[in-house]
């Protein structure tokens, strides 16, 4: 099977018209010894065989419809209105190129402009780019931008409650830069502000805090932002976008950058990708941020039009002096988010956040009613919370796996060696029946 729409007769005609007698003449520049290699690939499949093979592979996974799962920790199972798929799967969007030729790309450009508008609306920030790879790399980009914009400030302070994969990504990205990473300790699941004040100093370029944090707790963002700004450092807020229908947005506590993973906005979990990273900032930093940006302008007839703008920041123009090496964005996923937010609208965006909050709190209360189970931290939370179990959480997971139930993620205790902690996520997709089933299953582990 291939996708080449020409016959051998046509190839022969094209070769002849090109003044060569065979294909080999066109590739005689390749050294002969490079053409002698042996390697193996599976035999080609017809489309029918391919579909059957892929359906078999997919069927050997256990999905969130087959397993009752309370996993979150960065990727979330949310309701996606069917109109998102219907619109975002249109070939005119899916198979379009990057909109460098504005006149041939108004569809993509307008949608990204609307995406930028909605991201600013929900985060309360002034400026948004057109998206980055994912939440972890968005944190890393914000760290790099902070380093670049503040020469002679090598220190990056982050809350110890930052998602471990985000922290690992930040450290990997900046391994070649002169950056020093300082982890700010926690007290009862959130930043210890007194300790933080001693760690942020005039050599600090950025303070990075995630809220809700990896343990599900809401961080004291406003106080943390004040500490950063007192020393002239940027405050980078990493947030769950779907929480912002209810939770105070970064623009309300003067964050310099608000970043995060956009998957909760209309993107399937898809084993962790693709979602998209978002990066928003204050207006002042617009020339310093990375990634594509769409701007509004007019055409020669003075009609409203959109185009990529501020491209002189980017690698294809500035090469090694660019604000980042990033070239692409996750346009199709940003489009999904844009459609998703438009469908939810002002009210739906509030409702879905409230419903997450309600169901998570109902679940937490029910679980804590079981003897031996308690909330690990006495902090406000959104749709995720950490439970201290009476048994090691890994044992609990292993036993419930047989019942097709994943009650959460076994996590390390930030303060001790205990491994009895379970990070539980309850989104709007979990019904009261689901929650009852979870509580019933956990009751089996309850202490007498």
């Amino acid at each position: 099977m291939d996708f080449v729409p020409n016959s051998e007769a046509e190839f022969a005609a094209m070769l002849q018209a090109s003044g060569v007698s065979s294909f080999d003449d066109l590739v005689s520049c390749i050294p002969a010894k490079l053409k002698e290699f042996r390697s193996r690939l599976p035999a080609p499949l017809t489309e029918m065989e391919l579909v059957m093979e892929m359906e078999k592979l997919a069927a050997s996974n256990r999905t969130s419809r087959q397993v009752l799962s309370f996993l979150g920790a960065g990727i979330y199972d949310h309701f996606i209105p069917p109109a998102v798929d219907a619109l975002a799967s249109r070939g005119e969007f899916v198979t379009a190129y990057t909109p460098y030729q504005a006149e041939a790309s108004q569809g993509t450009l307008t949608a990204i402009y609307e995406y930028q508008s909605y991201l600013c609306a929900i985060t309360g920030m002034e400026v948004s780019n057109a998206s980055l790879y994912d939440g972890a790399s968005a944190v890393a980009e914000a760290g790099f931008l902070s380093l670049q914009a503040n020469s002679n400030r090598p220190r990056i302070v982050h809350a110890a409650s930052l998602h471990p994969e985000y922290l690992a990504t930040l450290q990997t990205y900046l391994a070649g830069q002169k950056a020093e990473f300082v982890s700010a300790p926690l007290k009862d699941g959130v930043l210890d502000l007194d300790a933080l004040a001693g760690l942020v100093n005039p050599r600090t370029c950025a303070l990075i805090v995630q809220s809700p944090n990896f343990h599900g707790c809401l961080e004291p963002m406003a106080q943390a932002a004040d500490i950063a700004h007192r020393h002239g450092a940027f405050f980078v807020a990493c947030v769950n976008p779907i929480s912002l229908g209810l939770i105070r947005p970064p623009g309300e506590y003067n964050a310099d950058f608000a970043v995060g993973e956009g998957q909760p906005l209309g993107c399937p979990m898809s084993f962790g990708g693709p979602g998209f990273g978002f990066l928003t900032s204050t207006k002042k930093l617009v020339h310093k941020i990375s990634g594509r940006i769409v701007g509004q302008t007019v055409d020669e007839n003075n009609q409203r039009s959109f185009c990529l703008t501020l491209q002189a920041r980017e690698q294809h123009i500035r090469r090694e002096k660019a604000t980042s090496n990033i070239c692409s964005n996750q346009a199709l996923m940003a489009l999904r988010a844009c459609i998703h937010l438009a469908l939810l609208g002002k009210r739906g965006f509030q409702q879905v956040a409230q419903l997450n909050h309600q169901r998570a709190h109902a679940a937490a209360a029910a679980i804590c009613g079981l003897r031996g189970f308690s909330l690990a931290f006495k902090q406000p939370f959104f749709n995720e919370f950490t439970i201290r179990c009476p048994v090691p959480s890994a044992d609990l997971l292993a036993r419930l796996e047989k019942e097709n139930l994943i009650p959460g993620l076994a996590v390390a205790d930030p303060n001790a060696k205990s491994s009895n902690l379970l990070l539980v996520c309850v989104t709007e997709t979990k019904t009261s029946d689901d929650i009852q089933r979870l509580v019933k299953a956990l009751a089996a582990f309850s202490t007498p």
Partner: protein
Amino acid sequence: MRPPLLNEQSKPGLQAVAFPVTNDPVDLPAEHRRQTPAPLPEVAEVDVVRHFTILSKDNFSVDTHFYPLGSCTMKYNPKVNEYVSALPGFAQLHPLQPASHAQGAMRLIFELEQMLGEICGMDAFTLQPAAGAHGELTGMLIARAAHLARGKPRRKVLVPSSAHGTNPASARLAGFQIVTVPGAPDGLLHPDQVAPLIDEDTAAIMLTNPNTLGVFEEHILEIARMAHEKGALLYYDGANLNALLGLCRPGDMGFDIVHVNLHKTFSTPHGGGGPGAGPVGVKKHLAPFLPSPRAQQNPDGSFSWQHNLPQSIGKMRAFHGNFSVLARAYAYIRALGWEGLRAASRAAIIHANYIKKQLEDKFPAYTNRPCMHECVLMANHLKEAGLTVRDIAKRILDYGYHAPTIAWPIHDCLMIEPTETESKETLDAFISAMRKVAREIETESYTLQHAPHHMPIQRVDEVKAARELRLRD
């Protein structure tokens, strides 16, 4: 009249999708509560559906138009790949589910790594990078870690002047200084250009082959020898891999690290700018530095994640890469097999040479040697006509083709990559349009200066966009 934005269609109280919230009070301290609701539009579902459907019609796309867009490999994106990548067994899978729940996805990852290894002649792959530039950064961080592990950090990376901008930007982000290798008039990289620049402080040389002028780097084996003699690594930017499938392999040329663009060579759609995927392959000696975790097959045939990788550079992103993009590329390779891949590159090369030959009296080729999968043509005499190469690009849109890549890697050039998935009829029609444009350059400069004329909008004012920044409603 341009379509209104959804915010402009907003009517208080409308809502396309509602949720069954109850009126129970929300227990949340005021300091954590949002003060004012996010100003999102209030519209009905039909408004949203019409809006985005109308917008979609303002786009060029591979499904509707030919993109002779050099360096970007805008080939056809098979529909079966969209179907299989969206199967619920993949789409509804959480990345932190235990390996026992994800054996199908992990098999796909493991086997795709193996297949890319066979295609590129590399020993080990990571599928974590989300794009080509992300792969480059991964590769450069691997180079950095490898030199550190040898006990001798190195500071410089050699990059040809014709390289993609991402190459120097990625190397610099990884902490390297960039040394630019100047171009030669014949478009090839010559060992005697590299010799004076490479030394014991050179960590790597980044090359694209075929290079951005569309010609095969004939001296690659000698350059590889020179690099390795100095202890430098050779990095392969896979942007142009679509020329080489089944013909030859970067690994056999001496490359130590490669990245491939699944959204170019392996037919995954560009999505209007992403998501793509940029897997990175390495030779055996660099495998310990690959990002964590790595997929492995256990003795019983099952799959698991290997996390204990003490020399790994770390993580390039959360979780396991752009999985649904990987699934599309996997399906593509399984559908084609070696014969199909070889046929794709063969057709891509024949198509590019055909276009080059048919246009060379109007737009002479930068070099007389046969091109690989793309050709670089010169638009001469533009200045006399008061035109720029951008005017040509905009005019080509009027004829129903996406513009070629322009003004890069040299001034006043058109870089044309037809790919294998266009019919001879399409190529002939494009050639005929290009010949018309060539005539217009001589006689109708006004038409070109103000092109396009038949698109949804006239030429946009990019200067106004940048001077009077308006980046949101």
